[in-house]
């Protein structure tokens, strides 16, 4: 007879661990199953951890968590072949408690975070793949793993099995992805001495910088690139939607190579040693791609529920918060002694009342708009660099004359009406 738990959480990433931690703290019997050698061994993100949602789970976590650097500067680059238009914000208030966000290396961070769930009483099992949910009379009653005697039972199964959630697909919650619903991101961790990082990015030891790069970093395709500073390494990566990759016949590693050798980026990486190469799908379908998140005896959290805000590169925080909300809902279901879909829909409602679904709804048409109208990434971004170059080049032309030139160059081909339409459409997509 298989053992029975209150809760089985599948996947020890930010969402699963947050849920396991929340339930274990309430005294529930939690089994957390991870397929990797240890939590974090298979997890990938650019590397920014947001303070708020983490703090909700572990107050003052920065005092003990394995973090890289607090981010005190966020830069945004619009890059063309031989130029960058840069803006950003640097503030020392982000470098002191309670901080704003941090760079992290997931292999270290996730391991530590899962350790917190274990301390709270959750049982963590690594190197174990959940192959399917056990369903009886329309209710999920447990999971089957790939191990001998691999069945385990539970009142609630939490699917935190990541972007390509095979388990929720099996349950019929998800359809197969369309290529425009996911981005493929490839990244490298490049070892570089602390001194060099501080010098090149104008930082002190305990200060970090993030750069989001648009434009030529994706060769004009819908997507972004990033460069983040760790203690003594850099995370550099680039991702575009699968659909644009297919359309442009781009290979992801070629894109990363192109980025690393871009004249605006190369000097920052010089002398660095490649330490890790990672690739991952990112759910970027947003609001329209969020599947059913609760069923009889089952809830879906984090990437598995496609909770990523691609515009603001937020994902891990949404994952954690969804895990927390799912945990709270499971505790409530336990109190009621009822794990039906209607009870577990408490979680769905909490999700809709939170910033997660509200933010996803705000941008629900953004990615679609930018994908359907490629002129934003292909034409307007390079135009911006051209405009800056024209405006700041001192050649004796009066500034007012330059403004006219710029506007003329933007509207020349398209006509003013088209440009106004484009601006209105973009504004509508993100308003």
């Amino acid at each position, binding site marked *: 007879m298989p053992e029975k738990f209150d809760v089985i959480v599948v996947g020890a990433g930010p969402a699963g661990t947050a849920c396991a931690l929340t339930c274990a703290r309430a005294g529930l019997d939690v089994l957390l199953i991870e397929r990797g050698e240890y939590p974090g061994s298979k997890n990938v993100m650019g590397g920014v951890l947001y303070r708020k949602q983490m703090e909700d789970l572990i107050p003052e976590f920065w005092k003990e968590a394995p973090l890289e650097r607090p981010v005190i500067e966020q830069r945004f680059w619009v890059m063309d072949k031989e130029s960058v238009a840069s803006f950003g914000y640097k503030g020392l208030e982000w470098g002191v408690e309670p901080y704003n966000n941090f760079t992290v290396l997931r292999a270290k961070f996730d391991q530590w975070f899962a350790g917190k769930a274990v301390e709270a009483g959750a049982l*963590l*099992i690594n190197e*174990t793949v959940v192959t399917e949910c056990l369903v009886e009379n329309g209710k999920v009653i447990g999971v089957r793993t790939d*191990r*001998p*005697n*691999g*069945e*385990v039972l539970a009142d609630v199964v939490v699917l935190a099995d990541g972007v390509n959630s095979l388990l929720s697909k099996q349950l019929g919650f998800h359809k197969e992805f369309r290529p425009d619903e996911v981005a493929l991101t490839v990244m490298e961790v490049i070892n570089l001495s602390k001194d060099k990082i501080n010098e090149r990015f104008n930082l002190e030891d305990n200060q970090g910088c993030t750069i989001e790069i648009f434009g030529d970093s994706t060769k004009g395709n819908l997507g972004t690139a990033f460069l983040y500073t760790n203690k003594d390494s850099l995370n550099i990566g680039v991702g575009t939607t699968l659909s644009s990759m297919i359309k442009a016949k781009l290979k992801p590693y070629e894109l990363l190579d192109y980025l690393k050798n871009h004249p605006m980026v190369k000097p920052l990486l010089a002398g660095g040693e490649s330490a890790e190469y990672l690739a991952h799908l990112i759910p970027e379908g947003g609001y329209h791609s969020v599947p059913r998140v609760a069923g009889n005896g089952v809830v879906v959290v984090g990437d598995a529920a496609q909770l990523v805000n691609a515009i603001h590169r937020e994902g891990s925080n949404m994952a954690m918060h969804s895990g927390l909300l799912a945990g709270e809902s499971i505790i409530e279901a336990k109190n009621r002694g009822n794990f039906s879909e209607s009870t577990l829909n408490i979680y769905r409602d909490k999700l809709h009342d939170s910033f997660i679904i509200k933010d996803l709804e705000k941008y629900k048409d953004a990615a679609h708009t930018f994908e359907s109208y490629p002129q934003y990434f292909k034409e307007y971004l390079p135009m911006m660099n051209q405009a800056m170059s024209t405006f700041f080049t001192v050649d004796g032309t009066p500034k007012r004359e330059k403004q006219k030139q710029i506007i003329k160059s933007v509207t020349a081909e398209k006509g003013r009406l088209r440009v106004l339409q484009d601006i209105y459409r973009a504004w509508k997509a993100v308003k």
Partner: protein
Amino acid sequence: MHIVVCVKQVPDTKIIKINPKTNTLDRRSAPAILNPYDAHAVQEAVKIREKTGGTISVLSMGPPQATAVIKKSIEIGADRGYLITDRAFAGADTLATSYALSKALERIGKELPVDIVICGKHAIDGDTGQVGPGIARRLDIPPITNVIEVVEVNQQEQTVLMKRKLANGYELIQTEIPCLMTVEKEINEIEYSPMPNMIKAARYEPIIWAVSDLENVDRTQLGLKGSPTIVGKMFTPPRPEGGKKLEGTTDEQVNQLMDILLENKDLFTLQSSN
């Protein structure tokens, strides 16, 4: 049947880095794992228990985090595990280690008499292979090293029949219980642990003993004090030099290789070995 398996936590030497200045292992550069030979030792105990029934205990000496290898052993199928951990054990060489482990084995034996002790052939971080025989000597039981097969455990006769690996074959040895064996990797394949074992291991809290929990211990034989080994010099073996890289298409490379082999006929003449 009570089988005790001695296990050690070691850095994964497949990926460990060597500090080029001191020539010592940079232990932080590699994750700590269950010594691979010891994993086979635990697996063999599980195989024996399938036939004889009984209990498998694992024993380790190390820092508190070495409980991880005890949990790993429970995953493979051990019933319970003991960790002896104490500052007094620190800095032990193979002599002091086998003394400390034998004292722990004495205490384990008082609770449930020990029939067979199994150790890995050696630990991958030290490669000495001395601790197993050192324990056997102190417990006054026969040590059988380099075991590649346990042929039979006869509980009625209280004997074990096993094969020992030799340079050019194997040796069949029968010995009386209690005995100690050290095992080679080829003795078995590590099985994929069943789910109930995984849950048991996740939940398991190893029994932890300090020096004061052991009886009749001569403290001068423990740790650094009890370790007469002196490391004279450490060096990284020089990388092999020379050699020739063959270039070109596969066919060209094969042809070049054939030419070289045919020119150096002495490569094929039998040389006396051993």
